[in-house]
């Protein structure tokens, strides 16, 4: 089955991005596919390569980048939401791309399920 995932909150502040990540891993472990992970609202902050959490904490951003590299997952950051919040190509982490909201709707159409994680 093909899953679409939407992430509406930034890293660390809300558990939403953790839950979305652990859900995404489980989707793959169950043998399903991930059509796309779309980052919206403060969710766009998941994609900043400037993040540097404490040594003993998880690195939420690089965790997404790794997941994308290992499983060829399309990580899309909404351009309008990103510009408002100071995310651009110059601070975008590996594996993410900035695109339009149409990518979210497309994911809703093409995936079998779309799951929203937010506040």
């Amino acid at each position, binding site marked *: *089955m093909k*899953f679409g995932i939407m992430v*509406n909150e930034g890293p660390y502040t809300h*558990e*939403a991005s953790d*839950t979305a990540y*652990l*859900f995404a*891993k*489980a*989707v793959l*472990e*169950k043998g*399903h596919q991930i059509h796309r992970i779309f980052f919206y609202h403060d969710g766009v902050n998941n994609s900043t390569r400037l993040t540097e959490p404490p040594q003993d904490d998880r690195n939420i951003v690089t965790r997404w980048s790794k997941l994308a590299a290992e499983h060829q997952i399309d990580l899309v950051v909404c351009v309008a939401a990103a510009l408002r919040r100071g995310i651009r190509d110059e601070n975008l982490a590996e594996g993410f791309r900035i695109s339009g909201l149409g990518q979210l709707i497309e994911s809703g159409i093409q995936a079998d*399920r*779309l*799951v*929203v*994680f*937010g*506040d």
Partner: protein
Amino acid sequence: MLHTVNKSPFERNSLERCLQYAKKGSAILLIEDGVYGALKGTAVTDKVKKAMKNVSIYALYPDIEARGMQDKAIDGIRLVDYGGFVDLVAEHRNVHSWL
């Protein structure tokens, strides 16, 4: 359909609204701070137990365990891991996250 609730029932109205919306035969999965709605002996326990007559209620065990509530889940609430979460989504036609 599958409903997810991620907020504490003591702080927000989302579990209460979800219980009103969840139709007979549908499922509710409590995640994140929503797992506080799955516990015995609280001010919302009775409301949740009553709903269990018509809908299946699940709770994400990793979130229960993180919060130290391992021994407190209401009998009959099914505890699932992330794999179980994925299965629930797959089994239902659609999902509504009560944000």
